[in-house]
């Protein structure tokens, strides 16, 4: 039967692991947004080379599971002499992987923007950088917020995979806890509660921004 005390006791060790989940997620989100934006810009740019690179980036990073990316990055790169600290490896892999998805979300939203929007900026001689930052992205951001929040929430959960490089985050901690108490149901539900708490914050932030940017 479901045991409430076990459920409640599970929180303490999990909370301790939650800080790593948070750390990796927040840094990963920031990195993913930045790289994702750049990749999207590359995919929509006039240069064939950049477009090709962007296409490959997305295709590769969406095609190969994050777990494999992590394993390769952390366990195979040392063979060629590139040794990275676990936290750095985790943030880089999570962020880079998210960038592929984020860039696609941007791309969709930008496709739906009326053409005149960028034209008006170009007509006054605004630089491509400013056009992106001031005109295109704010509108794409507002339109794609629900999908973007989706992606960020997925990223928080995907951060559980970084345990393969030895980082004790929530999922890992819950598995350990489940294996010592032999009560996985209680422990997993406790872990789910912590994820839910983090993700509710993200969702609330998304809702807030949706209201702020609604036109």
């Amino acid at each position: 039967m479901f045991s409430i005390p076990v459920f409640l006791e599970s929180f303490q060790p999990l909370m301790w692991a939650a800080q790593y989940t948070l750390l990796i997620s927040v840094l990963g989100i920031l990195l993913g947004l930045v790289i994702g934006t750049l990749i999207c810009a590359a995919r929509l740019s006039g240069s064939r080379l950049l477009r090709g690179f962007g296409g490959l980036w997305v295709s590769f990073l969406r095609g190969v599971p994050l777990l494999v990316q992590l394993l390769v990055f952390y366990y195979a790169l040392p063979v060629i002499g590139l040794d990275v600290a676990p936290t750095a490896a985790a943030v880089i892999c999570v962020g880079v992987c998210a960038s592929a998805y984020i860039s696609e979300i941007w791309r969709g939203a930008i496709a739906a923007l009326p053409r005149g929007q960028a034209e008006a900026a170009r007509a006054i001689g605004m630089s491509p950088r400013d056009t992106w930052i001031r005109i295109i992205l704010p509108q794409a951001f507002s339109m794609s917020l629900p999908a973007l929040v989706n992606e960020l929430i997925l990223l928080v959960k995907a951060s559980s995979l970084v345990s393969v490089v030895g980082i004790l985050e929530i999922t890992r901690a819950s598995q350990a806890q489940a294996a010592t108490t032999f009560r996985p149901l209680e422990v997993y539900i406790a872990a789910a509660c912590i994820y839910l708490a983090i993700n509710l914050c993200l969702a609330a932030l998304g809702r807030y921004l949706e209201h702020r940017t609604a036109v």
Partner: protein
Amino acid sequence: MQASSVEISKVNKFYGPFHALKDVDLSIPPGKVTCLIGPSGSGKSTLLRCINFLEEYDSGEVRIDGKLMGYDAPGRKMSGKKLRQMRRGVGMVFQQFNLWPHMTALQNVAEGLIRVRGLPKSEAEARATDALRKVGLADKTGNHPARLSGGQQQRVAIARAIAMEPQLMLFDEPTSALDPELVGEVLNVMKTLASEGMTMVVVTHEMGFAAHVADQVAFMEKGELVAVDSPQGIFHAPKDERIWNFLRTYRERNAF
């Protein structure tokens, strides 16, 4: 401010198989107002958009102050940086306004001043407020475009362009959504700009406007530039029957 001149020669433009501009030749003198009239779909907007290279023309040349627009040499497009440099001297008011919906009226106008002209924010906003006041929108500076009426949106678009103080201004039906009173006011603003030495190209369906303000009027039809003449010439002694037909209905209707 040094007004620009524009030389358009043998410009052709195709949309797929559709021939939208046919060997267009037009010389736009500096500091003057040139009005572009003609039936719907005759290529007026397309020509205007070729001048600031929003539309790439397929052959021929557009020269602003002698400099070839858009190409370094025939067939080789110029770098983005050079293009931007040239566009800074050219303002445009779009037929569909193209206001930025996520910015207020004030921000729409100030944006270019800050990002392109590099003015500090406070000064840019002061200038923007000024431009909006000129078009009668002092009380709507804080509204987003979605909360403005059609005519108000059009005036923001006009303010956005004139605030940049370009040497050459392209207007695509700048008064289509304005009531007569405002048309008068906007006209005055434009007249002042012209007298200060701004070159203007105005696509318009308001013949009265063209007759009063233009230094020269160009008539287009089916992608061809049929005639360029003084307003006097076009409106009172049109050399081409097509112009005559075009004007007749207008004359009939607008008398009341």
